[in-house]
């Protein structure tokens, strides 16, 4: 999917360094950032929050039929990562294949190129994860 320059630009803090939200009222963490805490609604007190980037694999898959822009990467592992603070996000696990993966594996955020086939010439960067070596 093509993404415009304004969209790419405004996602930079979240995508480049996992900047999300914390609700000071109920201590829930959110990624990506939200303006309303779904638990507290109007009583919520949302602040910007910098995630540590550490987490565990909640589930994963190995993609063989890629979306546009990922053709050269297959097969690659995508996962739902439960961040140490409690929020979850979806991201690629780099440098592994399915056979190396288990639910519960410890991972940490890395900064990588996401895709670069944008017709406007944009190179999209952002977070991925890699397994923490034990």
């Amino acid at each position, binding site marked *: 999917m093509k993404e415009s320059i304004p969209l790419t630009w405004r996602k930079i803090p979240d995508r480049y360094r996992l900047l999300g939200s914390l609700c000071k009222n109920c201590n829930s963490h959110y990624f990506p950032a939200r303006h309303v805490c779904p638990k507290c609604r109007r009583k919520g007190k949302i602040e910007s929050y910098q995630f540590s980037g550490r987490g565990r694999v909640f589930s994963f*898959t190995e993609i063989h039929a890629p979306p*546009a822009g990922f053709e050269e990467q297959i097969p690659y592992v995508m996962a739902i990562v439960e961040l140490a603070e409690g929020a*979850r996000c979806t991201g690629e696990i780099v440098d592994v294949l399915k056979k190396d993966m288990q639910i519960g594996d410890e991972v940490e955020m890395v900064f990588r190129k996401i895709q670069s086939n944008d017709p406007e010439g944009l190179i999209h960067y952002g977070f991925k994860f890699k397994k923490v070596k034990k």
Partner: protein
Amino acid sequence: MRKVAIVGVGMTKFGEHWERGFRDLVTEAGVKALEDAGMSGAEISAGYVGTMAAGSLIGQEHTGALIADYMGLNPIPITRVEGACASGSLALRQGLMAVASGMHDVVVVGGVEKMTDLDTAEVSEILGGAGDQEWELFLGATFPGLYAMMARRYMHDYKATEEMLASVAVKNHKHGSMNPLAQFQNEITIQDVLDSKMVADPLKILDCSPLTDGAAAVVLAPLDIAKKYTDTPIEIVASAQASDTIALHNRSSIAGVKAAQIAAQAAYKQAGVSPSQIRVAEVHDCFTIAELMAIEDLGFFSKGKGGEASLNGETQIGAKIPVNTSGGLKACGHPVGATGIKQAVEISWQLQGEAGKRQVSGADIGLSHNVGGSGATAVVHIYKRVN
């Protein structure tokens, strides 16, 4: 609120209709439904249509107006509704509410999708829009990939196997082989599924529903005048809808669809029936894992037991609870916006005793379960034969 019945149904054959366009398909389904109700069209006072992505798939928005025009129904008010793969059931629910409230008397409800005008990769990307475009798809997930992560977690939590997943596709192809309107009417084996090309591990191509062109339509009327139009009206005795987070990763559990559980509970309460009273069900098997979760979310089997039940044949015609007698999304096909309406059409035929070779004997109460995206929208309807 007034009681509402389906008084006419119709659908096109599902498949790759390269020679026919969006408006041809939806007109055929609509005309068949009107014919089935013995109506000229003058009786219709409003229309609702479900289509997910006509704008992206064929470059056409404003599809409500287009359909009223080509069905010769101007100047009725007609409204398009969208809820990804659940668009059809949302349209049915809108039509039901319009008749139940007394705002309209007789309404036509359609669902349609024309999906084979673009190549598969483009269509897959468009369907991905049913998930979170910015925080799932853009980062490299695919729509099958999201369901694959549900499958992996389900298998992890309940010790389910890839054979259990495959058994859903095998059963749905078997049912599809008895449906002359199904896209696939061939039978397959568990080994065929396991040997098919990997899409998003553990889901293979035969775990996935196909891309399909097709349309379906129903005519709704107040129950008290339904017999004017048909000898066999089908009362819609429950309609429930629920929502959840757009992104899969934000759900507390991904080994089930919470919105479907909530909609199902609400629907059973409205209808005053229990899961064990349902004689036939059409459920949303966009991927094989989705059917295993559905038969648990609907209360047919307890949590984690759906895989074994499916492998043991308990969801086949003639068994405990026949699921997806049409062939489901897997074999009948999945023209996204049409699916929810096709489910209502199939249940109507079953409850009328008109389902031919795939007839479930004694079917008097049926259910449809339609899910949008990876579970951010879910709709459950319950239907009863009127004696």
